[in-house]
């Protein structure tokens, strides 16, 4: 249990996917302008991360590893994720149209969000078992959400600022991301403090 908590807290705060691993920067910078869309995107990403882990982990352990096909993992994982996201999109559209309306736009962008492929690959690299992998995926998703929500707040403040012309748009967003990222460095000792 303690180990699970360490994985979860590390994934959310210490090894935050966006701010310390640089995975999923594209939606982090692109979809964080409004708090609402940042939240929608994060929920969709967390959901897909969990599902992708639940699907790819057994495929790796039961199909690839026993047959010595570890080298096929990238190609198999990305294909599974791409097809899975499309499947979820179709199912949501048909059966839960309200949810589809809220998340549909983001789902289409998730296939190529490197955080999703990243979390499935890292679960294998770190030799997590199934339960640990799921916890890691949940942590990664929640960490993504935390970073997105914090950052969208920062960006709303930026909207009203008088920014030098050269920095308008993307550059100031990146500099703001740098400062948000720095705050997360402070969490470095938290895991040791809490569970040490």
């Amino acid at each position, binding site marked *: 249990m303690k180990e699970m908590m360490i994985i979860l807290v590390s994934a959310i705060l210490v090894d935050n996917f966006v*701010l*310390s*691993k*640089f*995975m*999923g*920067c*594209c*939606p982090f*910078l*692109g*979809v964080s*302008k409004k708090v609402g869309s940042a939240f929608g995107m994060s929920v969709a990403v967390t959901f897909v991360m969990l599902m992708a882990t639940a699907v790819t982990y057994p495929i790796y352990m039961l199909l690839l590893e026993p047959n010595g096909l570890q*080298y*096929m*993992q*990238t*190609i198999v994982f*990305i*294909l599974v994720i*791409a*097809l899975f996201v499309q499947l979820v999109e179709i199912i949501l559209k048909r059966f839960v149209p309200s949810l589809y309306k809220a998340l549909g*736009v983001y789902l*289409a*962008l998730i*296939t*190529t*969000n*490197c955080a999703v*492929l*990243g979390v499935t*690959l*890292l679960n294998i*690299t770190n030799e997590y078992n199934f339960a640990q992998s799921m916890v890691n995926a949940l942590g990664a998703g929640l960490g993504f959400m935390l970073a997105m929500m914090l950052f969208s707040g920062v960006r709303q403040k930026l909207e009203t600022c008088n920014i030098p*012309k*050269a*920095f*308008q*748009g*993307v*550059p*100031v*967003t*990146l*500099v703001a*991301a*740098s*400062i948000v*990222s*720095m705050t997360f*460095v402070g969490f470095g000792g938290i895991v040791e403090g809490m569970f040490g």
Partner: protein
Amino acid sequence: MSYLTTFTKGIIKENPVLVMLLGMCPSLAMTSSVKNAVGMGLAATFVLLGSNVVISLLKNVIPKQVRLPSFIVIIAGFVTLIGFILQRYLPDLYAAMGVFLSLIVVNCIILARAEAFASKNNVAASALDALGMGLGFTLALTAISTVREILGAGTWLGLPVTKNFIEPMAFFVTPAGGFFVFGILVAVVNILTKYQISRKKLGCEGCKGGCAGCGASAQDQEKGETQE
């Protein structure tokens, strides 16, 4: 558009990282040292060249319903291939790139070029486009990593530069430093390109169709200059 401009546009005018703002994850994650940045740039160029050529050859065979999965499979194939090559001949670099080597699969630049250029142009033009974009990507990564490594570690490609008389500022090799240096460089390019970037919408906002959507800005620019 001549073959020459097909090649050169990726280097400066439409630099995939600093102007089009694609492939930001590796641009931030792999630039804490020049060696890794150049390795990542060349690996991505290899994948870009391979996938652009193959997709251009198959552009009339692939049905539009499975376009994205087909592209992804082809790209993933080349990514795995470069993984084999690096593991065999440059194991240090292979280890340094870790999971980011696999993540070239979802690098927006590659899908964007497949979608916006290779699936509409002939093989020669697609190959040149890939080489130009790959070179632009590599140069941008080298620029970012040069700043980060010199300021952050006092070295360049591992060789001491300012290490002995200026205390290195570790901030620049941390993730926060990555965002910061990237932001400053984009601002510089923004001035050089007469504020083109300020007018650009960032990232995937409102685009559909996977990260190929990330290349929407690329697609807009590509319209009207496709050649057959």
